[in-house]
């Protein structure tokens, strides 16, 4: 099979196009989803019409709620949030209604909705346009949380998400939209809850998602002559592929979690707890977390860089962990 290099944005577009073409119950709702300028949704309105690719007013509670209702009555909505931070105005619909209704109804209703949201810091966008928030969604019951890191994963994970019969929050890092990679033209799926070991190694295990996976891989590459680093991308924050992480820890005995989300009560703490509960005897030293401190993101680029994990900080931490 010859390589076919496209961007993550194009990969996401392809997944939605293919699924919408096959299944007329799939609709797309959100602010400016009909726009021809925005990568992931480009061309979908022309292909499927304004009934199914529908612009909504700036009122997240109403259009996310409408997506939930449409899912309850048999459609398969993809709802787009321009930025994940904007989802905070619609938390009742997302956390109470989307996440709990299937349980509350005793399984009488299913909610096959995919809530896509753009995440990520690093563009000097300030405190309400930079967050990741996957820990928040993963903390609450009834929601699967998906975070692709490569164009290949983006297409496979989005296809799976659209097809699954439960609520998903599907997060797309803004700085990864233009990252390129090999993506097969044909359809394929990647199951939710299966991690990917992106770099094999023996000395230390790094667990990292989204943009932080790329930073971790850069650090691992740079230090590879001195330290053999295993880098794991969970791909889904929930459900979590515990087995892949625990297997890696059996081999390395050392764990670093790199996390762009806030540190306190966050995803990094969950991975650390997993290691402490289920791999305690294999651990050769303390677990380290490199995460964004519980501080709002500043506008100033220097201040923002100060808060965020990056390859340089990861490399230093690897050296520290190995030195112990």
């Amino acid at each position, binding site marked *: 099979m010859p390589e076919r290099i496209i961007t993550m944005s194009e990969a996401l577009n392809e997944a939605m196009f293919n699924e919408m073409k096959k299944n007329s119950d799939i609709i797309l709702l959100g602010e400016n989803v009909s726009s021809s300028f925005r990568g992931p949704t480009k061309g979908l309105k022309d292909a499927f019409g304004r009934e199914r690719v529908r612009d*909504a*007013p700036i009122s997240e509670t109403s259009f996310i709620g409408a997506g939930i209702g449409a899912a*309850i009555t048999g459609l398969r909505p993809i709802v787009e949030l321009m930025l994940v931070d904007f989802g905070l105005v619609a938390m009742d619909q997302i956390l109470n209604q989307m996440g709990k209704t299937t349980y509350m*109804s005793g399984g009488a209703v299913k909610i096959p909705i995919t809530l896509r949201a753009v995440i990520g810091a690093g563009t000097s966008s300030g405190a309400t346009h930079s967050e990741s928030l996957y820990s928040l969604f993963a903390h609450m*019951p009834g929601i699967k949380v998906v975070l692709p890191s490569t164009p290949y994963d983006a297409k496979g994970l989005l296809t799976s998400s659209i097809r699954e019969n439960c609520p998903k929050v599907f997060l797309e890092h803004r700085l990864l939209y233009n990252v390129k990679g090999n993506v097969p033209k044909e359809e394929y799926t990647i199951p939710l809850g299966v991690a990917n070991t992106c770099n094999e190694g023996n000395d230390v295990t790094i667990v990292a998602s989204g943009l932080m996976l790329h930073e971790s891989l850069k650090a691992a590459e740079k230090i590879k002559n001195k330290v053999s680093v295993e880098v794991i991308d969970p791909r889904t924050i929930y459900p979590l592929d515990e087995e892949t992480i625990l297997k890696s820890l059996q081999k390395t005995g050392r764990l670093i979690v790199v996390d762009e989300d806030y540190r306190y009560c966050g995803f990094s703490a969950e991975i650390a707890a997993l290691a402490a509960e289920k791999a305690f005897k294999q651990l050769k030293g303390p677990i380290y977390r490199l995460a964004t401190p519980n501080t709002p993101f500043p506008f100033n680029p220097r201040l923002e860089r100060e808060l965020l994990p990056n390859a340089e900080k990861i490399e230093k931490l690897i050296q520290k962990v190995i030195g112990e």
Partner: protein
Amino acid sequence: MSKIVLDNDKFLELYRVMIRIRTYETTLRTLSREGKIPARFGMYTGQEGVATGVSAHLKKDDQIGSTHRPVGHLIAKGINLDKLTAELCGKATGFNKGKAGSYHIFDPETGCLGANGIVGASVPMCAGYALRNQIKNDGRVTVSYFGEGGSNQGGIQETLNLAACWNLPIVFICENSSPVVQRMLGHEMDYPQLTIDNVSIRAAGYGMPGSTHDGWDVEEVYRVAGEAINRARSGKGPTLLEFKVHQFEGNLEGRLEANEKDKPFCPIDVLEHKLRIRQILKKDTEEKIRLEELELVQKAVKFALSSPEPDIKEAYTDVFGGAF
């Protein structure tokens, strides 16, 4: 549009539904107070004319979204009393295996798509049911119930706007149970929760028709609801109807006692009076209807009480729509 009028049979049918709701609620409230059943629910007493007059125009597969005072809406829509009672008592044979209780009942079979424990939260989801109807173009309509207190929720304001922008086949029904004093039912309030007499004037701000009517007159409810539902069904868009009601029993069952001065606003008294004058309702018919409905309710209570508790494993199931 042809004029919407009631014939004698239809009058008696509406009377029967109102008696069913009243008998059901008072019987269950008494049993609950005596500690004989664990059911606890917000009462609809005094509002029966609204759900009855509205639902008389709805088909089985039309959808409704309800509130935390759902019993009247559900019964008028034709829900099975046995399973309803079992659910209110938390039994395995309830619609939702005892996981919903009164606040979250779902019965897709009769289009009862959600009571809701969050004030106003079912309304955005109702826009989704209506969106499904519009896309499928099969003539179904959605009725979205809320109260005057809920009308202040942002989600409802947003949804009124969204429904108008998308021209959705939906009728919003605001049951205003504080028609004289603007207060929240059952709560002392020092400040008003509304500074307008009629919630329906808000419709103008969203570009849809809105009007206010006597909710204690089922004939009036039937007429105006019929017009709004026909309008929605024929693709002409949403309507906001407000019905003034006198709620006799307060927010949660038993908190407030019936107020003597509210009695002239009892929808059942009002209808009985009309039907006797017009010689539609004779004494023996009335007694027969009341007895039959009481038997139906007693049968439902018996079913619920003899039903098993849910299996302890049910605590963990249905989070994502299947075994967890």
